[in-house]
């Protein structure tokens, strides 16, 4: 210990002096940042161990400084340290920790390192899952820990702890609070999608990959390209076709996808046409690339999903059908053992509720009777579901409208509106006006115009627009 370095006791007293968040930011943060790393890494040497002396709940900020170095220094399974870690993550004050998100990140990384060294990933996963919840300012906030946790879970194939976090959609990104960058966002959704795909929850997987692909971008990121590849395959698995990406997807990404994912696009086109032969040849052709991208497993699952999809199609056309016929209709007729496989597929589909059917073996070979969906939608479950959905939709719409209002009253937006009427991206058209009226009033492009003009003429940049509009309707001044 160099003589200029303060002793633990000094530091601890300093820390304990900073009682509220303002003091922590103003005095404690610069003080601790000026100290050398080895101060924190030093052994207590007879003095009181700061980790014992400090309370993780009230002094989370400083506690983290020590804990990081302890974790970094630790090798192997250290029960005492883990108890400290556990105490910290369960009780720490998120607001204080957010002030030093860099350190929080190092802490998480160190913990993961310990976990990998001891081959017990749960050591890191469980505390981190809780840590994230302490760290978030709001339930849907993305933190810098998210991608790390997702990656760790994926590598450990232990997803139970992260599922509640994944199921909670990200709705809040604040880099100034959580020190994240775009990579964190992309990686989290990429890993999250993979976890869902691993669990065969392809609906969510598609959603996660879509979020990654459609993230705003000036240039395409490699993560987005990989996400798109998986997006194509999971989308085929879940829906039988590639869902269109949102319109706002960055053009740079779109261009890159077109060039980089030709094989995937070809496979998807073949798949959407539902012809067994074509898909199989396309799969053979694409196999090296799928294997290289480590997507071959998904592709193989696509092939199985194809049979299921075909059987589902048959329920639309047939009431009863022999297994033999099904086998030939879905194109497994030429394969040995096809009928048995088909029966297995149907049984699994009945179990999972994908089709409603019964199989009878009164006749040779077995006969499948397809039934209608027994859910008549006349029960309270449906009612509750619809109600809940309406509420969610109203809430999100209100949020959107509020955001729209907020943006339209920002000085930056306002300035732009007043001096650029001939700009091509000029956003004030009829639909905007109707926004101010509440979009439920929206009837037709021209209908509510007089009312809108009336309303809109109160603000100056819009007035200019409306005048030209009332002069000659239909010719856009923009």
């Amino acid at each position: 210990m160099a003589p200029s370095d303060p002793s633990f006791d000094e530091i601890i007293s300093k820390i304990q002096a900073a009682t509220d968040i303002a003091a922590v930011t103003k005095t404690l943060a610069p003080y601790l940042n000026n100290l050398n790393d080895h101060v924190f890494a030093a052994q207590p040497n007879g003095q009181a161990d700061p980790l014992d002396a400090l309370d993780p709940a009230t002094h989370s900020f400083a506690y983290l400084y020590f804990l990081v170095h302890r974790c970094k220094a630790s090798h192997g399974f250290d029960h005492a340290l883990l108890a400290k870690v556990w105490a910290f993550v369960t009780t720490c004050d998120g607001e204080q920790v957010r002030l030093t998100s860099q350190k929080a990140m190092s802490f998480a990384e160190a913990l993961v390192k310990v976990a990998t060294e001891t081959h017990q990933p749960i050591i890191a996963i469980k505390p981190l899952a809780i840590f994230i919840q302490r760290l978030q300012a709001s339930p849907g906030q993305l933190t810098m820990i998210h991608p790390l946790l997702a990656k760790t879970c994926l590598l450990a194939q232990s997803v139970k702890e992260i599922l509640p976090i994944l199921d909670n959609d990200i709705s809040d990104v604040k880099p100034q609070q959580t020190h994240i960058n775009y990579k964190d966002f992309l990686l989290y959704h990429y890993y999250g999608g993979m976890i869902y795909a691993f669990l065969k929850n392809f609906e969510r997987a598609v959603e996660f990959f879509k979020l990654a692909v459609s993230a705003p971008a000036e240039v395409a990121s490699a993560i987005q390209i990989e996400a798109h590849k998986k997006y194509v395959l999971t989308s085929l698995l879940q829906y039988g076709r590639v869902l269109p990406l949102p319109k706002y997807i960055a053009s740079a990404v779109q261009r890159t996808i077109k060039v980089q994912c030709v094989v995937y696009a070809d496979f998807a086109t073949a798949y959407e046409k539902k012809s067994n032969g074509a898909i199989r040849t396309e799969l053979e052709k694409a196999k090296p690339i799928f294997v290289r991208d480590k997507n071959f497993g998904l592709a193989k699952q696509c092939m199985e999903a194809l049979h299921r999809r075909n059987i589902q199609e048959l329920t639309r056309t047939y009431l009863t059908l022999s297994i033999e016929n099904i086998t030939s209709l879905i194109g497994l007729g030429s394969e040995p053992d096809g009928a048995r496989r088909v029966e297995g597929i149907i049984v699994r589909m009945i179990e999972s509720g994908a089709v409603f059917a019964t199989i009878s073996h009164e006749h040779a070979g077995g006969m499948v009777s397809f039934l209608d969906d027994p859910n008549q939608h006349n029960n309270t479950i449906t009612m509750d579901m619809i109600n809940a959905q309406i509420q969610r939709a109203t809430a999100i719409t209100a949020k959107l409208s509020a955001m729209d209002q907020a943006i339209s009253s920002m000085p930056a937006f306002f300035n732009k509106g007043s001096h650029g009427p001939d700009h091509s991206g000029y956003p004030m058209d009829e639909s905007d006006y109707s926004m101010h009226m509440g979009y439920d009033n929206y009837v037709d492009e021209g209908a509510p115009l007089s009312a809108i003009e009336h309303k809109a003429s109160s603000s100056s940049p819009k007035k200019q627009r409306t005048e030209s509009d009332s002069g000659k309707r239909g010719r856009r001044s923009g």
Partner: protein
Amino acid sequence: MDPRLSPDPTSLDPTPGHISNTMDTSADNHASMDSDMFTDSQPASAGTPSSLSNVNLTADGGSNAGGGAEGNSKRKRFVKVVEVDAPNNLDLDAYIATYKGHTKVNRLEFIADRCPSLQVDALKLAITELRNTNTLHVSRYINLARKLNEAVKFGAPGSASVSSDLLTVDKAWADSQMLKAKQQTDLLEGELKNYKRNSIKESIRMGNIELGNHYYACGDLTSAHRSYSRTRDYCTTSKHIIELCMNVIKASIELGNFPHVLTYVVKAESTPEVAQDKELTKAKLKAASGLANLDLSKYPAAARDFLSIGEELVGNQYGDVISANDIAVYGGLCALASFNRTELKRLVIDNVGFRQYLELEPHIRDLIQGFYNSNYVLCLDIMDKWKNDYLLDLHLHSHIEALYTNIRKKALVQFTSPFLTVDLTKMAKSFSTTVPALEKELVSLIIGGQIEARIDSQQKILWAKQTNKRSAIFERSTAMGQDYEREAKALVLRMQMTNHGLVVKSPPGERGGPNDSESPFEGPHHPRGGRDGREMFAGTRANVSSFLSSFSRDRHHR
């Protein structure tokens, strides 16, 4: 009774180009014209002029089967020449007597190429026709004579009755005709030049028309078309415009340039009518546009055109393009293939004008009546009997399969619609087919959404599907709600990301600008400041607005 339909590569349509080495330039012209017809019709069907978009839209909306069949029929025309053993009902002399002008010879030649048993007769008639009309299209005469010679050499039926003066090419006559044509061309061109020098509008127009007529007579259709088109600049009255349109339509039909026909039909129809021949002109235009729509496989539009011709053309007034019998056949088949029962009753059976044509072709009338009265055995029987004849029709041949398939589908749909359950064995009997084949047809119809039913393949019964609309609505609305929520959430997130500068950028080194400041304590509303920030706001706001309005629009319209 069944026709022998064999795709026979050796019987591929020999174009006049085969003998062009012995012939002058007009033979080449003819050859190139023929190939033009094929190449033109393909891309042109995609690029129909925008002025016709209305017609096209209704056509597309009306028939979904027509669209699918289009590719097929087009391809068939290239690859497969259907050879017909013998017509079932065709009386060649009576049939061809209803035509005049080029189409007469064209049709005869078409029949000769397709039907060996009529080959000699058709060629004989064609050559006689050319000689009698003193044609200037000499290459065509020589070509036909050559074909006749070949046919006789191979001993085609009826060869014995061919007189020798038809077999030998009348060299002297041909030469004189060629000379005449050449002189006439020179004369007319000279005159036209003269008119142009004097720049008298009306004379230039007349000169161009005369030259066009002459080219047309010589069989040089592209030049004729060009000359006719040139009169456009000199048209002063609406009568002139009508004349221009009719001339161009005439040439275009023969060239097979049907999209062009449609353009000029619209042009002519939008011209204020002149008093004389008003109804006749209208009827001719309808017939032309019907032909064009038929060629483009837009059967509903074609049917409507043919049905609205009125009684003006009963006496084969438009014989150089289409006969009254053709109108009955084309119109009847297209209507059956595209209309439902009520439309059939309203537009066909109650159509006084069209009834006149149907009298000429009683079997089409019976067919329509039978279809309307659900007597499908009779219908299928009639269709079968006349199929060969239609395969020998210049305009109809490549569409027969598609039309027949459509009619059959319509019949199947109509048959099943009133019943809750249908016994497949009985149904197969009334469609004179087997149960497995019927099952296949029904499956394709069910998948296509034309029949709402399901098949019990064990007991061979078709069950009408009881759709629970309430459930369907519930399912759809929940799905839509989910979509809405998901999209809206994604949008909110995206706005936040752009506002906070979470945008994928190239690594700072490549950009060379210090604009990637991502300091965690940055002010929330001015992430990057300056112009960029403003544009970003505008962009996100436009996103939100369009999202909300388009979603609300969806809600109103669904």
